[in-house]
């Protein structure tokens, strides 16, 4: 509408003024123009210097200003103003017309149908759009999704399983090497499904003076659609552990939705979630425990609304490798105490995590439990990194720092930093500052600050309370229901702390704090990442009260310790690890495999032979040799998916004929429906792309202006034209307006 008014008043479209240069055709020099303008000003002044009726000063100057404006306006028109600009010579250059043919173009969110329908209507031979373009340019039509193809008949099906805008534009540019290409017209929703850097492409377009004219299709926001935008869950987990899946649900106006979790074909969770109004993105979490070990396929579904716009973006699939592994934790305790025995007892029904303990029962006398061989730990705490690094977790109880040699303390630090193990220190008479750790490498490792001086033996009895982070964390989840979880924690008996840390390190997270009637809360369970591993401090020394002072059916104590110890080792790496860049792929996607291989001392190995075996559902096996890459240090390889279904991946690392280890992973090839995710029109992206390259962005409503505007550009196939401006309606309107105002003012002051 605005553009129509503009064209009425200024005779030409706005783009003419944007692209052109204004000049005067009279040939008068600037000096003369200035001189004449001053002369007209003086003339206007003189004409009001002597009036029969005395005038107030303000009125007098007002009349002079109006007369000056009138004279100047007439003078400017007499100077013959023109606008000069470049315009393409008809049929001398090409326009490449790229039509998005991907699946997202089938979304029916345009005013009168699907996005693809708008394209087909604009490009039909009978449409004014097509005809006007065809008059000015030699058109070459392309359909594109992942790749662009020339398609003179433009038979669009909206069936492409991906969109690569950059590749499509590059294809067109390549086709027109040596040919005069005036512009590229892109018709798309901008929902790119490939990560691409557009900066080099923009620079190429600018260098070749090929602007992008973009017709953006689809709505920028959906009203009746829920999208399961993201699902995050661990790719690998120890058998028996609970998975916390973090889901991101996108919706604008939908208030509630039901979320289902399926393991294989079986629904294992169903939950109604509230979606606050106006919150476009809503994160939720769902907990579940995989049944048994092996490669598990999970489908997350947000139940579609009755009249939902896109059903395909309501589900996502994920693969989880449930490991039937038996990671070992070494627990070193300096004195027989209830915390030791009750912690061991809490793991009675734990089938995966193995607790091996070294208990000093007397000076130089040890009691070993959970050892694999009669000789294991017979000489006390492991002397070498190799021996220590066989464990994935390490717990230090009430045992003083001088129990260890300095080398052993350094090895403990390296156990977390280099090996990626989990470390936990428990409260006790000989732990933390009281154990003399403040000046040891363990102080670096701990998530709390230690005091140089051992604290006075002032015991505090505090009640465990969840912090906000604690309410979200797997360790402190004693019930899947958040309210019940808080109630369970509030009901647990008080515990004793001997030391209040002088501070918690930056980046450390407090999961539990101890509260008493007096004084501020004290950190009870704190955790931080350290190097490749994780480090925890549990300040209490009698969590056994959670067992002894609750009914024996209450499993809080057992569950807390099982979860804590699983967390300790869940992500501790093995010598050979394998991952893929995603866990769900479309047919034809490239699967990027990465393996990390370490020695027994967990130094990266660069000279290993690493082989990946991919087993497809039909039984076919492909072998991919992985090669060392200095980028991030690992072995990488690629494989292209050709069959739908669950694929199993086994990586074997060998060195000098010896097998270092094997690792397993899995992924699924199927309908990822990438095209229907984040499928709103990406208006800002498309507008910026057009403007950066010197082109313009249009909507389906304004697209009809494109054929008129695209002609105004300067290139080898264009010519300069001049358009007169003196006869623009706005000029006459201004003249009439100024004359009328002057006349009215004169009348008001009774001037002739």
């Amino acid at each position, binding site marked *: 509408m605005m553009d129509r008014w503009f064209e009425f008043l200024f005779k030409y479209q706005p783009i003419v003024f944007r692209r052109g240069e204004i000049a005067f055709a009279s040939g008068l020099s600037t000096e003369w123009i200035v001189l004449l303008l001053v002369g007209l000003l003086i003339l206007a002044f003189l004409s009001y210097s002597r009036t029969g009726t005395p005038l107030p000063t303000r009125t007098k100057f007002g009349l002079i200003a109006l007369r000056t404006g009138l004279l100047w306006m007439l003078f400017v028109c007499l100077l013959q103003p023109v606008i000069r600009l470049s315009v393409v010579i008809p049929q001398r250059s090409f326009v490449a017309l790229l039509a998005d043919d991907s699946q997202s173009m089938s979304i029916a969110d345009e005013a009168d149908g699907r996005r693809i329908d708008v394209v087909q209507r604009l490009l039909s031979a009978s449409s004014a759009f097509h005809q006007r373009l065809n008059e000015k340019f030699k058109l070459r039509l392309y359909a594109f999704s992942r790749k662009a193809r020339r398609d003179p008949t433009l038979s669009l099906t909206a069936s492409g399983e991906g969109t690569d805008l950059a590749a499509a534009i590059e294809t067109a540019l390549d086709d027109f090497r040596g040919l005069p290409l005036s512009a590229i017209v892109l018709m798309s929703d901008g929902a790119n499904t490939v990560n691409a850097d557009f900066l080099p492409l923009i620079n190429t377009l600018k260098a070749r003076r090929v602007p992008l004219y973009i017709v953006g299709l689809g709505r920028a926001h959906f009203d009746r659609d829920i999208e399961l935008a993201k699902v995050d869950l661990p790719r690998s987990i120890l058998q028996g552990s609970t998975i916390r899946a973090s889901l991101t649900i996108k919706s604008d106006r939908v208030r509630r939705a039901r979320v289902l979790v399926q393991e294989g074909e079986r629904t294992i969770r169903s939950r109604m979630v509230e979606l606050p109004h106006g919150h476009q993105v809503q994160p939720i979490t769902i907990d579940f425990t995989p049944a048994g070990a092996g490669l598990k396929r999970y489908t997350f579904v947000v139940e579609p609304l009755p009249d939902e716009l896109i059903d395909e973006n309501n589900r996502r699939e994920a693969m989880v490798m449930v490991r039937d592994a038996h990671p070992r934790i070494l627990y070193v305790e*300096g004195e027989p105490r209830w915390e030791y025995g*009750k912690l061991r007892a809490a793991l009675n029904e734990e089938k995966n995590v193995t607790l091996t303990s070294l208990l000093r029962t007397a000076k130089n006398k040890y*009691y070993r439990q959970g050892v694999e061989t009669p000789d294991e730990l017979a000489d006390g705490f492991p002397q070498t990194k190799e021996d220590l690094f066989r464990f994935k977790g390490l717990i230090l109880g009430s045992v003083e720092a001088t129990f260890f040699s300095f080398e052993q303390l350094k090895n403990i630090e390296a156990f977390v930093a280099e090996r990626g193990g989990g470390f936990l220190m428990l409260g006790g008479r000989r732990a933390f500052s009281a154990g003399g750790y403040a000046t040891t490498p363990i102080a670096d490792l701990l998530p709390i600050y230690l005091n140089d001086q051992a604290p006075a033996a002032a*015991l505090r009895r505090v009640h465990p309370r969840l912090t906000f982070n604690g309410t979200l964390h797997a360790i402190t989840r004693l019930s899947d229901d958040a309210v019940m979880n808080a109630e369970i924690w509030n009901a647990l008996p008080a515990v004793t702390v001997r030391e209040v840390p002088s501070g918690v390190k930056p980046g450390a997270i407090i999961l539990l704090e101890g509260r008493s009637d007096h004084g501020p809360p004290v950190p009870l369970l704190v955790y931080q990442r350290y190097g490749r591993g994780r480090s925890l401090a549990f300040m209490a020394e009698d969590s056994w009260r959670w067992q*002894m002072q609750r009914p024996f059916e209450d499993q809080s104590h057992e569950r807390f310790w099982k979860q804590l110890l699983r967390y300790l080792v869940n992500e501790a790496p093995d010598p050979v690890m394998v991952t893929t860049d995603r866990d769900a792929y479309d047919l034809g996607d490239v699967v990027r495999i990465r393996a990390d291989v370490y020695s027994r001392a967990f130094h990266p190995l660069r000279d290993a032979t690493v082989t990946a075996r991919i087993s497809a559902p039909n039984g076919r096996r492909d072998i991919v040799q992985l090669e060392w890459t200095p980028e991030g240090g690992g072995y990488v390889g690629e494989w292209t998916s050709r069959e739908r279904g669950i694929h199993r991946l086994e990586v074997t690392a060998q060195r000098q004929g010896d097998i270092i280890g094997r690792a397993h992973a899995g992924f699924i090839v199927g309908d990822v429906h990438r095209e229907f995710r984040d499928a709103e029109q990406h208006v800002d992206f498309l507008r910026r792309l057009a403007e950066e390259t010197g082109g313009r962005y249009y909507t389906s409503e304004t697209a009809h202006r494109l054929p008129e505007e695209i002609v105004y550009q300067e290139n080898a196939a264009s010519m300069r034209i001049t358009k007169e401006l003196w006869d623009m309606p706005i000029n006459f309107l201004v003249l009439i307006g100024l004359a009328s105002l002057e006349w009215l003012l004169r009348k008001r002051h009774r001037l002739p």
Partner: protein
Amino acid sequence: MGRERTIITSMGAMVLLFIMGTARGQSDRVDDTTRFTFARIKYSGPLVGRATLFGQGLPPWAHDYPRGGRHLMKIVTELTSIEADPDEVILTFDDPRLFDYPFAYLCEVGFMQLSDAEIKGLREYLLRGGFLIVDDFRGRWALDNLREHLHRAFPEYELEELDISHPIFNCFFNIETLDVVPPYGGGIPKFYGLSDAHGRLMMVVNYNNDISEYWEWSDDPFLPIEETNQAYKFGVNYIIYALTH
């Protein structure tokens, strides 16, 4: 007079505030209850009064008290890394404070008559992780009385005789034989145990024996040193086992 009253009132208020402040500052501080503490089980029964005539005029549940427990705690502190409280606490099975002390001692069970509340407390105590030594009793009638009580508390478990291969006999000292000499009485000592579903021994029973008698008189030549040493080995092992299983 009025001024004096004001001064006295002000001083009184300051003293009160000081006391309140001190109390407030220390109110969340507690004694060290994390030390190993021996709990003695007190019980009642129709024969308790009669049994009080024996054992230095003490009720049967208090036989060898307090010297037996105190001597054992001294030995435990000397020999092991355990920080033990020399004083034992005396509680009944239905006292909730018992759950603060996961190690308990019970004797002369032939005279014991437990109420339903005590039976419930016994069951909870052992299933939650408590450990009980049953000592200082002899005769079939006393063992049957114990069995009867245990059947009420643990219908699903039975007392079983222990042999030398059980970890409780080698977790600290390697005890070589269970053929021990009782301090008195003619019966043959036997060791019984009650285990939970996970195989954890919840209770050890010194039948026809009184190892606490040896502990009690260990500072007196009244009993032979060999047997006394052996009794201490059992006591220390019971504690280490309870703390580690």
